[in-house]
């Protein structure tokens, strides 16, 4: 396949994407890096001066900093757990012979098409609202005190909303993987005396490993950047309970208009994301290569 000619051509064809992304990656990043060393508040643009590492120190010592990193991870891990486990369960269910399979599938994938702010608004105002939400109505129906989700279980509520949006994606990929399982393998296992549970543990699950990997990889990329849902629902609170790193940066950038601080936060976030990515690729890259 690879002759010198095609090889050179290949490099050439790859160039537009690589250059575009390189520019897209480096120019703003370089500017961000530069800003991160400045005292630069948008509301005080006349007063820009060199700050050295002060922005980093300032961001790092923010009382919400460590909790925000912890929250970022909790959101990623929580959503992944729900979507992967839920996705597997749903995929198994949808793989069964059922009446109206097409419609069921349409219903299940629908949340994926809803834009995040709308999803958050709907959940906040109509589902989880302690006064008018459906959950509250259900609680009252059973004679229980409605739960104020965003005050009592803020992070969990965010995770639920985000998981709701990503569950269809996980389900779809896992379902496709499930359906690609060789029928003869299932039959072989059946002949070998494996019951449903054993077939699931020894055959289906390992078969889906790769798909699970992909789900984890893609979702992690998106989940590291969750912020719209937080902005719309809890605004990072109560306290710092739902402040994650992107939201902390958001707060710094668009409430404090502290460009220097936000840039430092951005640089920190990029570094953290890359650490996560590094471990992810290590753990997962193998699985993808097969």
């Amino acid at each position, binding site marked *: 396949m690879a002759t010198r000619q095609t090889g050179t051509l290949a490099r050439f064809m790859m160039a537009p994407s690589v250059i575009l992304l390189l520019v897209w990656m480096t120019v703003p990043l370089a500017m961000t890096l530069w800003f991160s060393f400045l005292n630069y508040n948008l509301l005080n643009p006349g007063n820009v001066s060199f700050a050295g590492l002060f922005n980093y120190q300032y961001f790092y010592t923010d009382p919400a900093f460590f909790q925000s990193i912890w929250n970022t991870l909790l959101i990623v891990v929580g959503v992944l757990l729900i979507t992967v486990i839920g996705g597997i369960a749903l995929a198994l269910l949808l793989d069964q012979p059922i009446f109206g399979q097409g419609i069921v599938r349409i219903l299940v994938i629908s949340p994926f098409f809803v834009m995040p702010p709308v999803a958050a608004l709907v959940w906040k105002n109509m589902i989880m609202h302690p006064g008018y939400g459906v959950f509250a109505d259900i609680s009252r129906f059973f004679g229980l005190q409605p739960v104020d989700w965003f005050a009592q279980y803020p992070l969990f509520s965010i995770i639920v909303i985000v998981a709701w949006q990503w569950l269809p994606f996980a389900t779809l990929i896992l379902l496709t993987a499930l359906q690609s399982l060789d029928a003869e393998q299932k*039959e072989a296992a059946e002949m070998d005396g494996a019951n449903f549970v054993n077939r699931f543990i020894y055959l289906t699950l390992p078969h889906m490993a790769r798909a699970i990997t992909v789900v984890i990889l893609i979702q992690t990329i998106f989940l590291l950047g969750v912020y719209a849902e937080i902005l719309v629902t809890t605004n990072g609170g109560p306290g710092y309970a739902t402040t994650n790193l992107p939201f902390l940066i958001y707060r710094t950038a668009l409430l404090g208009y502290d460009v220097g601080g936000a840039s430092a936060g951005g640089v920190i976030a990029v570094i953290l994301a890359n650490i996560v990515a590094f471990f992810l690729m290590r753990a997962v890259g193998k699985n993808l290569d097969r």
Partner: protein
Amino acid sequence: MGQITLKNVSKSFGATVIIPEIDLTIEDGEFVVFVGPSGCGKSTLLRLIAGLEDTSAGAIVIDGRDVTGEAPAKRKLAMVFQSYALYPHMTVAKNIAFPLKMAGEDKAAIDRKVADAARILNLTNYLDRRPGQLSGGQRQRVAIGRAIVRQPSAFLFDEPLSNLDAALRGTMRLEISELHHQLKTTMIYVTHDQVEAMTMADKIVVLNAGNIEQVGSPMELYKTPKNLFVAGFIGSPKMNLINGAVAAKHGAATVGIRPEHMQISTSAGEWKATVGVAEHLGSDTFLHVNADGVGPLTVRADGEISVRHGDTVFLTPDPTKLHRFSEDGRAM
């Protein structure tokens, strides 16, 4: 033990009847081969026996026990699939051990049995590999290994060699025959390869569109095919089938003569023919000739023969090896 009886078994998918109605008995220890053209229902029949499909009607009896409604796992049969259906994420050892593990055997027993199977199949050095790291023949053997550890009452093979190349197919063919000699377990083997059917079977079942055309030993089928279908199907190259005047002379609608049953001479003989393509295999030469008044024939000649495209040769069929068929295709 492994006597399998099909009583009036039929199978339809929806409205399509795949197997109209079949009766068949397979004796304990027999090596039975199902042959037939593609789509004739060989796999379906095997899967019915395995319990991977439900029968539409009729009963399947294994060792005197009616198993028609039983789950595959309960039937004590082992199946080797065409694709091998190995578990790709397990090592060879784990693959072979899987049925034992499912049966809840203890670790020591499993290890011993796996080691035994591996020894029999020459897999001892590969026990730690994954299927993806094995060659086709090795995979094939792992699939067999997975089948034999359980000591099933019968083995079912669905075209197990069709994914292998010719050379390997030859080797594996011998190995499976060998295994049958060793284990003496009933084996049912589906193939559409002539050579496999002829060389391995104790008994061949020729299927056509879900019907059994003939059951018998390979030589029986070779020597006395019951009808045109079997005559054309068994033997390679195919039997030459001749209609018209020549057949009439022998008092039949069709006569058949196998390529290896004709004398060839450059000087004189019953039929005069012009040579088309001559295929020199070294050991033999297959001549594709056009015989005057007879039509195209394939003739097997000596490897040393030197004839060329366009030469004239004379053919004399061995009259004792002539097959006669009536109008409706039955042997006379």
